[in-house]
Structures are given as structure tokens and as C-alpha cells.
């Protein structure tokens, strides 16, 4: 054991937890920590321009790499600025470790300058949080927080440390073991339940697997493929589950939900057995709960017992990780063929292809995504914001591997795209990472362009610029009688903004320029921003209207297809 300051203990602890990068922003109470950073050259600090960016970067880093992402903010506004990013990670179960400073212990609770009760504020959006009152508590706290963050169902944690605790010294006593009486995630899955699930699968005539984000987090893509192939079960994914099953696989039928593929929605709605794996049957995926596929039986495999039975009654609950449960399930199920069922879905897909891009002289956003897919040969990592562009990016790029699409699903956080992509690029320095941005969301966090420059990241930034908050405009058109209120946006010249940061830029105004611009961006070694002036009034189809059931999925109306 060695005597260390609190600040040293924090960095020593994080280093022992394998942390190599911290996305942070300094301020008064974290100065002791920043003062200590140079003593830990193994930890790279990336200076963000707003703490929200730090949290999203840690999130993007985690989603791209599967590792824990770390963000750091000072007390008060520094901490509260992290909140949107922490909640984004919370809703999507991403292991983000948030570290905040707080005012000195004598001032805690006295409304000291820049004091915020950040542990109180983040209770309901973290798996757990800690307020550390003594330096000797730091090693155990860091160890426990990191353990909670990345085990079980992953999720954000927050550790709040008063300034004088960073400065005080104590013995560094690193616990080898974590011992938490109230936290023991179940990984294995109940043998009896697995056998019952196998029986149901054997009996099913129209089974379908719905794979979610949990498959990606437990690294169970191969195990999922094995099950699907042995029992010949078609697989659809949730939006966050995209990449959990290779989309080129013959048993892949896209993803379901509000803007999922028509045939995926119909398959889910006509199955006699749904096997939900690492997903939570949320409203955007399932449509109106009470009218989802009456009579269907559900097998629900999830590591979080609280997800089972939350929205739908479950015939067979299996609490465990996909990685452990799927192979055992595969062992128990019989080899089977579901030829008729697959033919049924194939026919729906033939009649309602959903992903067909119509011939048009306009620069359709779908065409831009598809061209990007073709130019990158489906290999790029795609990070999106939230809205129409997000849905098109999910639909018209075809994903082959887990962690290839990174997007804010549960919270739907506009502004995630740029910092999320920065985090992903930091995690994967040699990968081709594209940030697909909305023109609205980009402006929420575009100050992080400075980080792209500082860190010399080869990030490709594509703005889908239609001059509207497109998804809101679509809803106003469809559900508010075309009463367009506060959705048209005067956009700045995004190319000039890129220029101001010293980032190369291109503007694309016609369809013919799309592929050459993408090629130019790919050939360019450094970062580049492309402002795609896409068709302004294109809508996302298919769509399950707000409040409707999956069976009520509607496709693009004829007048829109004629545009």
C-alpha cells in the first residue's frame, strides 16, 4: 500500500480498471485531479467543449468498443451538463462512468458556489451513484462503480467527489474482490426454463426471434446465428439490435418498430412464438401493446429480471445473458424447417419491399445512405443523431456486425451524432467512422468539431440538411393537419462552420454529386464534413402511426411516391 492523494487514488483506480481515455472538462473543484493527470500518462484526457459532449463521447466510445467509457465534469453546471448524456446511456444500457467533482465537504449542503446535488439528480438515471466523503473510500468506490457499470445489464454510474477529498491523503488499499450483497447479476439462465423454451420452440410453427441490444452487449452474435440456423427461425432485430444478426443472412428480415420494415412488423405480428433476446419490448418496437399479435406466446431472455413481464405477459422467462443462454437453448432445440413460414414472410417482403428506393431526380436521403453503403462496401461504422436521418441510416445501410450502428434509441437524444461519433472514432482510430447528422441535432453539439481538430480524428461527417426538423415536420404533416409550427430552420452555412474549425468541407446539391463526394471524403486522410442538401419534404416510411398497432403499419402513400 502506498499513501496517495484522493486525486491520485482516482486515477490509479481508473487505470487499474483499464481506463485509457477520459473525456472531460476542467473547473474549480476538479483542479486537483487535473493537476495530477500528468502523473498518469497512460490516461489520455480529451478536452471537450461542453460536458454533454463528454458524456456522449464516453457513450460512443463504449458502444463502439464494448469497453467502459469515462467522462468527467466539474461541480454544479459541469455535472448537470452531463445529465442528458448519462440518461442517454441509461436508457440504452451503456457502461458510462461519470466522474464529477463537488464543493468541499464544509460547503456541501450549504449551497456553495457551483454546488449541485448531482447524486440526488442522477439517482433515477444511473445504476448506482456514490458521494465519496473520505479519501480512503476512493479505491473501493472506483472498483465497485466500475464493476456495477459494466457487469449484468450495463449502465451508467456516477462518482461524486468533493474537492478537499481529492486533496487529502490516505493509504491506497485496492480491493481485489468486489463484495456487494445487493448486486449479483444472473448470467446462467434457469435450466428448467431453457428446456421449456426449447419445447415451445419445437412446437412452434411460426417462430420468430427478436434480437436486441443485449445480444450485442453480451457478444452473442455467433450464438444467435447458431440457434436461428438450427431451428430455422427468422430473425428480426430492434433498432438498437441492428448488427446483432448479419443483415445479409438468409434468415434476416430487418428490424421492427415504428419505422421498421413492413415485413418485419408483419412477421412479428403473425408469429405464433416470439423469442425476445436481450430486448425490452418497448413501445417504439412493439406498437400499441394491447393489440400486438393476440395469442402469441413469448419467450423472453434478458439479463434484467425487471424487464420480464414489464410490458407483456411472458410464457417462459429466462433471466441470463444471451451469451450463456443461447448455446444451451440451441443444444435443446430440435433441428427444424419452417419453409412455409419463411415463404409467407418472403412473400410479404416481395409485395411490400419497404427498402426499395424509387427512381427520382431529387436527392433523396435514402439514396444518399444507400450510396454510402455501396461506396463503403458496408464496412463503415455509422453513428447517427435522432430523427428522420437516423431512421434512413438504420434502413438503407445494411449492417453486418455488432457495434456497427451507434445511435441513441431509448432516450432519442438529438445532438448525440457528433460527440457519439467522436467517441467511436477515439475507440476505433483506424476504422472508417461516419457521423450521419441531422441539421437540427448537429447544431445542438457542433462545438465538438473542435475536438475532431484537436485530436486529429479522421471522422467523416455527413449532414442531412433539409432545413427542417424533419421528423417533427413529418408528424405535423401527418397528425397535425399540416400545421407546420416551429420546424423550418434557418441553417448556418455548415461548410463555413467547418472551415472556421479548419475542417475540409463539401456541399452536395445534386444526386450526381453524391457518390463522388463520398469518394472524395473517403480518400481524404483527415476529417471532412459534407453538407448534403437533401430533398426537403421526404418522409420516413413505413410507419406505425403514433398509438397504432404493428398490424396497422402504413407504407408510403402514392402521392408521396409520385414526388
Amino acid at each position, binding site marked *: 500500500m502506498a499513501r496517495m492523494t484522493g486525486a491520485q487514488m482516482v486515477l490509479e483506480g481508473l487505470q487499474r480498471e483499464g481506463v485509457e481515455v477520459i473525456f472531460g472538462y476542467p473547473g474549480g473543484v476538479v483542479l486537483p485531479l487535473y493537476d495530477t493527470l500528468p502523473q498518469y500518462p497512460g490516461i489520455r484526457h480529451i478536452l471537450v467543449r461542453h460536458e454533454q459532449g463528454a458524456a456522449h463521447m464516453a457513450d460512443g466510445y463504449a458502444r463502439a468498443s464494448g469497453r467502459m467509457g469515462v467522462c468527467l465534469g466539474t461541480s454544479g453546471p459541469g455535472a448537470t451538463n452531463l445529465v442528458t448524456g448519462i440518461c442517454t446511456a441509461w436508457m440504452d444500457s451503456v457502461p458510462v462512468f461519470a466522474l464529477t467533482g463537488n464543493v*468541499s*465537504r464544509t460547503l456541501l449542503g450549504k449551497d456553495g458556489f457551483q454546488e449541485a446535488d448531482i447524486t440526488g439528480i442522477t439517482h433515477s438515471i444511473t445504476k*448506482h451513484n456514490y458521494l465519496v466523503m473520505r479519501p480512503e473510500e476512493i479505491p473501493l468506490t472506483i472498483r465497485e462503480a466500475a464493476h*456495477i457499470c459494466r457487469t449484468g445489464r450495463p449502465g451508467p454510474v456516477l462518482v461524486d467527489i468533493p474537492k*478537499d477529498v481529492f486533496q487529502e491523503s490516505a493509504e491506497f*488499499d485496492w480491493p481485489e474482490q468486489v463484495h456487494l*450483497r445487493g*448486486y449479483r447479476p444472473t448470467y446462467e439462465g434457469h435450466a428448467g426454463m431453457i428446456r421449456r423454451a426449447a419445447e415451445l420452440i419445437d412446437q412452434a410453427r411460426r417462430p420468430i426471434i427478436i434480437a436486441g441490444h443485449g445480444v450485442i452487449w453480451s457478444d452473442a452474435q455467433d450464438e444467435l446465428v447458431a440457434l436461428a440456423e438450427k431451428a430455422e427461425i427468422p430473425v428480426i432485430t430492434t433498432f438498437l439490435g441492428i448488427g446483432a444478426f448479419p443483415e445479409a443472412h438468409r434468415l434476416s428480415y430487418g428490424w421492427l418498430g415504428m419505422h421498421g420494415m413492413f415485413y418485419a412488423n408483419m412477421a412479428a405480428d403473425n408469429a405464433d412464438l416470439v423469442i425476445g433476446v436481450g430486448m425490452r419490448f418497448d413501445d417504439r418496437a412493439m406498437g400499441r401493446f394491447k393489440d400486438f399479435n393476440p395469442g402469441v406466446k413469448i419467450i423472453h431472455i434478458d439479463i434484467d429480471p425487471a424487464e420480464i*413481464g414489464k410490458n407483456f405477459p411472458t410464457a417462459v422467462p429466462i433471466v441470463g445473458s444471451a451469451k450463456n443462454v443461447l448455446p444451451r437453448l440451441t443444444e435443446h432445440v430440435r433441428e427444424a424447417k419452417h419453409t412455409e413460414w419463411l415463404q409467407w414472410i418472403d412473400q410479404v417482403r416481395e409485395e411490400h419491399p419497404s427498402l426499395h428506393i424509387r427512381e427520382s431526380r431529387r436527392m433523396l436521403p435514402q439514396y444518399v445512405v444507400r450510396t454510402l453503403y455501396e461506396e463503403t462496401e458496408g464496412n463503415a461504422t455509422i453513428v447517427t443523431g435522432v430523427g428522420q436521418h437516423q431512421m434512413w441510416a438504420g434502413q438503407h445501410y445494411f449492417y453486418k456486425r455488432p457495434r456497427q450502428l451507434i445511435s441513441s434509441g431509448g432516450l432519442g437524444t438529438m445532438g448525440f451524432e457528433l460527440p457519439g461519433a467522436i467517441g467511436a472514432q477515439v475507440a476505433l482510430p483506424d476504422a472508417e467512422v461516419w457521423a450521419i447528422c441531422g441539421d437540427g441535432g448537429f447544431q445542438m453539439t457542433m462545438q465538438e468539431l473542435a475536438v475532431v481538430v484537436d485530436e486529429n480524428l479522421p471522422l467523416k461527417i455527413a449532414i442531412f440538411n433539409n432545413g427542417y426538423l424533419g421528423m417533427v415536420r413529418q408528424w405535423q404533416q401527418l397528425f397535425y393537419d399540416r400545421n407546420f409550427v416551429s420546424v423550418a430552420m434557418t441553417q448556418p452555412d455548415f461548410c463555413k462552420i467547418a472551415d472556421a474549425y479548419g475542417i475540409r468541407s463539401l456541399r452536395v446539391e445534386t444526386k450526381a454529386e453524391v457518390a463522388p463526394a463520398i469518394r472524395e471524403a473517403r480518400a481524404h486522410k483527415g476529417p471532412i464534413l459534407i453538407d448534403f442538401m437533401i430533398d426537403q419534404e421526404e418522409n420516413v416510411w413505413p410507419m406505425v402511426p403514433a398509438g397504432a398497432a404493428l398490424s396497422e403499419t402504413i407504407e408510403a402513400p402514392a402521392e408521396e411516391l409520385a414526388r
Partner: protein
Amino acid sequence: MNPSLNGHQPRKRANHHTVVAIVEDKPGVLMRVASLFRRRGFNIESLTVGHSEMPGLSRMTIVVDGDSAPVEQVEKQLYKLIDVIKVSDLSQEDIVARELAMIKVRCNNVNRHELLDIANVFRADVVDIATNSIILQVVGDEDKIDGLIKMCEPYGIRELSRTGRIAMVRGTKTTTVHEPEPERIARIHQTQGRRVEGDLPFSSD
């Protein structure tokens, strides 16, 4: 004691569940639990918390309105809190459930005896007495307490304080946890998050 003797109709409690949670005795635990119930829309009828037989562990007894949420969801959500170690739904168990109430009742020389008779029927204790006021302390299940309250109402209730329900399973079965922590870890857990006693240097830089 059968409160129906007093003509009192107990409140309908068909769907109330008694849930016992063994939790770490740490700052913020009560807030975490209360915040969880609020956020998930579970209605709390009563919540009591105090030390358990194990140092470092508290025992919470929560009466949940089962109409607001399936009690199974309540249990599972509680389990997600790291500081919650064990949750038991006592609804299907044979339990002893008790509550304590103090009732400050208006009275005078004329009707005091009457009131003491009532208290006697309910086996309530007189814990304070003044010229125009009396405090009755009563222990029992909610129905009994409701019954006494009803009987006191005509005299005028000045103040009422109820503890909420605590409960325990009859017989040898327990709902508690006996899992000590390693000493090194326990030492840190005992102070984690607690204020430091004594003077700390003022610092606002």
C-alpha cells in the same frame, strides 16, 4: 380485539401488499426507494424503516397499493437498487402486522372517563394527560387503529400520528439476510457517503 364490535367498517384493503426490504444502512437509501416508487408510479400506502438485527442493515416495510402496479414488478424494481439486498412479498404469508398510533384527543372533566373507557376497550395506553387533552397510544393492525380513531372523532381529534405497518412472518421462517461482509470491505461500507464528523478546514476555492 374485533373493531367491528364498534360498528366501524374497515377501509377496503383488498389489494394492499406488504413488502419487506432488507437494505444497506447508508445515506440516500430511503430516497432511492421512495424515488423508485414515485418514478414507476407505484403508490405507497405506508413505509417504515429502522434497524434490523444485523448491524449495517435496515429493514423497510412497505405497503404497496397493488392496483397501481403488479407487486412482482415492485419487487423486481426494488432488487435493481444496489443497496437493496433482499425483498419479500408477505402478502401470501401468515404474518403478524402491527402499527402504532398516537392520538391527541380533546376532552374535559365531564367526558374524560368515557374516553378512558373507550381506550381501555382498545387496550390503548394514556401516555399524556392535560386539562383539555389526552394522548392515547395504541398498537395493533390498521383496522383496530381505524376503529379507535373513529371512536375518538366525536370528541375532536387534535392531532394524529401513525407509524405505518411493520410485519413479520409467524413461525421460524424469516425474511432477513445473514451474510456478513469481509471486514476490510465492511469498514469502508460503513462510512461510505456519510458526513465526516468534526471540523474540516473551510475551503471555497
